[in-house]
């Protein structure tokens, strides 16, 4: 009986493998950027400006995806840009997750006044348009990596709070929570040992999704030049520059866009895949 049930768990999950694979490749490239990147991402060479990607006429060896209008190697810039993207993705998503999930768990499990106060705050928070809110925050904190991370966390904790509140609320009505009460366990302990494990799959899925969102928000902020200092390459920054020369060199816009798209998609699919795998009821 146990064996028959264990079977689907070991099934090859294409979604999880593909998404995880891309994330792993992108993450390793970002970490080992100095070893992998074929060129210095900041080195300008006006003789090599707007070189096309390798399969087109006029490409130079060593510049696989071509160069931008200042002659900087596009592939190297995308690889280095991944560093900022991943740092922001992990730091901002974890910060938003911890704040939002904690408040959501408290609101959903305790209910009553705690729920009313937290829910009102979330309602008010979500009434701000997120991108404008982010721009405002970065303008206040000043540009830089840490203010981008703080801005994303400050905006997006509500996403966790809402979902986890609803889930915790549903779990709190379950008989096993009542059983733990009868056994004599305190409310706080029940929240952590009975309710939390049941909302954890959702937290994991949301966390991965949020990483994707953080990558997008960071790209938006660097697109409007409000992310980190303009010297370091970021995906949003490269896209912004590519927009200016789209008629002469479309690749400067297209390749970072594809990278961004694949990364964000992978984060969300990876999260869904993990949720399905972690959830003892779904699997």
């Amino acid at each position: 009986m146990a064996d028959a049930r264990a079977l689907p768990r070991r099934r090859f999950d294409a979604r999880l493998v593909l998404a995880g694979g891309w994330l792993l490749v992108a993450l390793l490239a970002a970490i080992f950027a100095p070893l992998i990147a074929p060129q210095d991402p900041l080195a300008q060479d006006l003789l090599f400006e707007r070189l096309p990607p390798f399969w087109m006429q006029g490409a130079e060896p060593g510049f696989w995806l071509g160069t931008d209008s200042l002659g900087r190697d596009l592939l190297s810039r995308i690889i280095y840009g991944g560093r900022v993207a991943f740092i922001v993705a992990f730091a901002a998503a974890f910060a938003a997750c911890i704040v939002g999930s904690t408040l959501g768990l408290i609101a959903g499990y305790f209910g009553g006044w705690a729920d009313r106060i937290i829910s009102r705050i979330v309602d008010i928070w979500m009434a701000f348009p997120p991108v404008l809110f982010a721009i405002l925050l970065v303008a206040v904190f000043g540009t830089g990596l840490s203010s981008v991370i703080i801005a994303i966390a400050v905006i997006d904790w509500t996403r966790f709070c809402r979902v986890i509140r609803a889930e915790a609320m549903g779990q709190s009505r379950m008989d096993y929570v009542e059983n733990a009460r009868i056994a004599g366990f305190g409310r706080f302990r029940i929240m952590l040992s009975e309710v939390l494990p049941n909302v954890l799959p959702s937290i994991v899925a949301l966390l991965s999704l949020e990483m994707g969102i953080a990558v997008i928000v960071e790209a938006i902020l660097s697109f409007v030049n409000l992310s980190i200092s303009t010297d370091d390459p970021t995906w949003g920054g490269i896209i912004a520059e590519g927009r200016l020369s789209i008629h002469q060199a479309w690749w400067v816009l297209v390749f970072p866009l594809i990278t961004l798209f694949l990364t964000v998609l992978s984060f969300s699919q990876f999260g869904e895949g993990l949720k399905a795998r972690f959830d003892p009821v779904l699997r």
Partner: protein
Amino acid sequence: MTACLDISNLSATLSNGQRVLRSVSLSVEPGEVRALVGESGAGKSMIGKAVLGVLPPSVKIVEGSIRLEGADLGALSAKERRRVIGAKTALIPQDPLTALNPSRRVGPQMTDRLVHILGWAADRADKRVRQLLDEVHIREPDRVMRAYPHELSGGMRQRVLIAAAFAAEPRLIVADEPTTALDVTVQKQILRLIAQLQKEHGTAILFVTHDLGVVAKISQKVTVLYAGKVVEEADTAALFADPQHAYTRALMAATPKYTDPLASLMPVDEAVLAGLAAEIAIADHDWRPSLDRKSGHG
């Protein structure tokens, strides 16, 4: 000898003032099985929840007392009450599918209370749980304790819950319709199992059910409840031999008999219900809750 459970004059209302329990008095002696019967909405589960201290927030106890082995639950602080209830009682729940935490393994869920509330050493708790699993005829305790609840069948889960309820040697077990959610074929086994463990451990049981067949099999005493009011109270044998109240007789007539299932299905007579409504109206009219205790058992 102090009663294991002594409920006297217990009344409860919803937040809109509607009465859900009407001066209920009942007691369970040590080692006795007391059945609590009534149709759905009669308040029988509510009494169980009140005893276990898990009434929904919308229900307030407005008068009366619940004593567990002499300790008045209403007079205790919330923390003390939790401790007393946790040490003296256990629940065999109605729905074995939701009564176990789906994301935790079965073993720790069974030993949790022994270790963290009663302060047993982990290996002693483990041994105890294995012993109880053996008593409920589970042959592979290792596999069951390592399993997640969804890997077990409904009947298996109910056995696990029965084992868990008896593991801490409570003085009183509230069994809240423990067979209702199960297959008919499994119901009988589970019922027999509860009766057997009850005899061996000498635990008092407050057995909440709507099934008179179950009452006849398992209990020594019966309390019949209608609309939160005790209608009749008797020894089980006496009740079935000579029911005093018209409502009890009507309930018995409404119970299907295997020999002639269709013919015996009689709805409760209108006149009986009208009589009950009148009784309740009179009781409510005379009822003045002594509001000495405003808060219920939370």
